[in-house]
């Protein structure tokens, strides 16, 4: 128990001060029926060495691709420079609480302010918050903002939004009197928005969407606005924003999503970091922490948490949201990452993603077909000649982590699979994939395709 520095003498001194004799006396007055009265039934404690070995053993039971991973589906592996981990390992960032005392928290506060600024820059929005739990929660919170702002009962949700996010939305709104209408995708893989009813609070898109296709955000936003609805754009990989017209530039009202691709490792899905940004007029509806600029008693420029009247610790049941702890350290990683890559580096990463995906499309082996012709960023939906789940098993044997099989979420694309390409893959891994895909086509399918092509 090296974390507890109390020696027996220390314990004695502390107990005596409270007029007690033994540690058990500290709990003597608890009702007998709630006292545990036995040891917890847990594995015995381990020394640090044995503990580390144990965890190493568990980690080793997980399989990492050796010849390339082409799995995206909401979690994107970009290169994160070594400095990012140095920054988030720094004691004063890692082991500080939410910056309630600005006098001894300027480091955290200024970093949040910088994060907010960079998210605004990326999304083309006016204001951003300090983070929420993840991309799905950011998206859902945006929908709640729209519902509260417009006081209308309907939300149109593109089927191009990540299936997990759509599920979370349903979970969250189960208790509310709200209609969640799915909007189908067209032949081109883009959201096919019909008439928007007047009682619509918001139209929710994801860009690029879950099938990899880039949406016509401007057109969809205009349609939403036409019906007095807000346009919300969810972004699962903000690296795309280096190349794609920003939600703000497309006229959207709220941009939200996942910032984890900006500097965090895949981490088996968490902790990630949801970001939210909006146009000026919705600023006071943003949930979560906001850092603002001000001055201190001597007139120095300083930062502090602000507009706290929106928050739970002040407003309790009337707060804009219940969020308290957010994903601070992950947002710090994002801030460090963006500062390191800068506009140039982010663009290069994005361009490599795009170029790899385009190269993949061009070299797609016979037997495989593109599901859509529309422009894509770094994910490409493909119709496979065999069951994608089975295909992935074969790829796994060759050290490759395949794409995301669509069948479970999109029954209409039973043999569909979305492959993802990022700058960490490189041309060599793309070749590995293409070679294996080709080798794994049943002869019949390839021949058939060859004859057709």
């Amino acid at each position, binding site marked *: 128990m090296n974390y507890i520095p109390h020696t027996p003498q220390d314990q004695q001194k502390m107990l005596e001060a409270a007029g007690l004799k033994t540690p058990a006396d500290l709990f003597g007055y608890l009702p007998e029926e709630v006292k545990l009265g036995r040891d917890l039934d847990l594995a015995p404690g381990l020394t640090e060495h044995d503990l580390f070995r144990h965890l190493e053993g568990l980690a080793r039971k997980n399989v990492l691709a050796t010849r390339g991973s082409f799995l995206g589906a909401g979690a994107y592996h970009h290169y994160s420079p070594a400095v990012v981990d140095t920054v988030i390992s720094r004691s004063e960032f890692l082991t500080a609480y939410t910056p309630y005392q600005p006098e001894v928290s300027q480091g955290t506060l200024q970093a949040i302010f910088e994060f907010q600024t960079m998210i605004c820059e990326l999304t083309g929005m006016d204001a951003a918050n300090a983070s929420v739990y993840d991309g799905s929660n950011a998206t859902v919170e945006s929908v709640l903002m729209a519902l509260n702002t417009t006081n209308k009962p309907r939300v149109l949700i593109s089927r191009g939004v990540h299936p997990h996010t759509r599920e979370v939305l349903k979970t969250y709104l189960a208790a509310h009197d709200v209609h969640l209408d799915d909007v189908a995708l067209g032949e081109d893989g883009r959201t096919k928005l019909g008439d928007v009813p007047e009682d619509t609070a918001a139209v929710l898109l994801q860009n690029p969407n879950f099938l990899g296709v880039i949406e016509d955000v401007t057109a969809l936003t205009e349609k939403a606005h036409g019906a007095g609805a807000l346009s919300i754009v969810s972004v699962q990989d903000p690296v795309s924003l280096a190349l794609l017209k920003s939600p703000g530039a497309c006229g959207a009202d709220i941009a939200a999503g996942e910032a984890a691709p900006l500097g965090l490792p895949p981490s088996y899905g968490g902790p990630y970091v949801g970001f939210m940004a909006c146009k000026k007029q919705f600023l006071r509806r943003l949930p979560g922490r906001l850092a603002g600029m001000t001055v201190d008693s001597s007139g120095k420029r300083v930062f502090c948490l602000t507009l706290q009247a929106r928050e739970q610790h002040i407003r309790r049941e009337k707060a804009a949201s219940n969020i308290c702890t957010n994903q601070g350290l992950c947002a710090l990683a994002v801030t460090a990452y963006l500062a390191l890559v800068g506009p140039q580096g982010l663009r290069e990463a994005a361009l490599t993603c*795009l170029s790899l995906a385009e190269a993949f499309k061009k070299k797609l082996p016979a037997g495989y077909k593109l599901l859509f012709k529309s422009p894509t960023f770094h994910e490409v939906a493909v119709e496979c000649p065999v069951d994608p789940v089975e295909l992935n098993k074969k790829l796994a044997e060759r050290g490759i982590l395949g794409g995301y099989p669509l069948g479970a979420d999109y029954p209409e694309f039973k043999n569909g699979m979305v492959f993802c390409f990022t700058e960490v893959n490189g041309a060599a891994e793309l070749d590995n994939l293409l070679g294996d895909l080709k080798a794994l086509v049943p002869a019949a399918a390839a021949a058939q395709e060859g004859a057709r092509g």
Partner: protein
Amino acid sequence: MDRLEPTLFEKSSPGRRGCTPPTGGVALVDPKAVLGDLVREEPPALPELGELQVLRHFMRLSQLNFSIDTNFYPLGSCTMKYNPRVNEQTARLAGFARLHPMQPVEAVQGALELMYDLQNDLQEITGMDGFTLQPAAGAHGEFTALLMAAAYFRDKGEKRTKVVVPDSSHGTNPASAALAGFEVVTIPTNPVGDVDLEQLKAVLNEEVACLMLTNPSTLGLFEQQIVEVARLVHDVGGLLYYDGANMNALLGVARPGDMGFDLVHLNLHKTMSTPHGGGGPGAGPVGARGALVDYLPGPRAGKTRDGFEFYQPSKSIGRVRMFWGNFLVLVRAYTYIRYHGPDGLRQVAEGAVMAANYVRMKVKEYFDMPYDRLCMHEFVLSAKTMKEKKGVRAMDVAKRLLDYGFHAPTVYFPLCVEEALMIEPTETEALETLDAFAEALVKIAHEDVGLVTSAPHNTPVGRADEARAARKPVLRWEEGAQ
């Protein structure tokens, strides 16, 4: 010398860069040709700095922070205990950190085993029957559990619209209840710091879905009538919800399940030592008893003859987040639990309660002590008399403590105590540190009023003008912003 650091944007210079992403030998396309008018015209105005400049910027920013690693941090309700460094190492193992959340289950057996074991450990620690690891923080867990309660009553055909909380409850409790669609009913605390039983009885009826209770309460007190409270709530068919933010006091000593709680959340970023990171990330797993287990968000980690799997509870309310949880936070918490074992966890609780009572005894005569009894892991002082007599407020005491190198306690919470100072030493501080902190508090109680009300004096910056920040919010950097 001005110790403050310019923003990244003020340090930016066109053409600098701190990272070159890999190019991977791929021939680059012309984005305009591929994307047409979907292409972005203006690059985002991100700052441009060299690698050392970025690193140094953040190192210097960090120097402006207090943290557990450098300062005693008795921030009540936040359990700012030591965040073990071995947890940081295990969370960085490639087999965890590089794992993709959508990998097929056969490729993630280690992760599933860890999650499965952690679920079981948390069940045993709380006396619950099942856990979800999805919620990302305490408030997220509260909301999750309330949605479960709502679904549970919906299935039972009961229309229950109310959630009851004590006036000492944390702000997230009523906020979560409201978000989950409930009406919030607040009841007062009685003179000894427990729930006012008569008032509770008065509000309990068939419309009440849930009573949310923190035990020990945010006053740092064990709710002595807990068995009676549970009986009363259950008698009207309601559920009892355990806000586990203060579970540190009871590890291995008493379990919410044995007290009659039906739903709990734990704050792994408090009790289980995962670092707060200047605001997060956390993890707020939710546990349930009996029939409620079926309502847990899915997928949950399960075990079959062939290994580990994900499965969906039969009446699951569905996902509350993408993927499976704040996994690397879970790795840290699991590491922490396995380090301690049953014996160690009980010692954690004993140590935390011992330390809090020790500091309490050393300082109580110098402040008001609204509820003067044996406390649990924290206690709440009041500067009421001090304010009335000398004009020194709780906030002034808090700021003055910064000058002594100690982080401030939580102030003005719980709301039911005027001029509250909420002090949680945790079990990981040496006796000498507790002594020095208590001495500083006593000293401040006697210090010159002006010195205290104008504090802090030794911090990188003085008190921030928060009114100005709120009046005309500047939330992002812009040329000429200040």
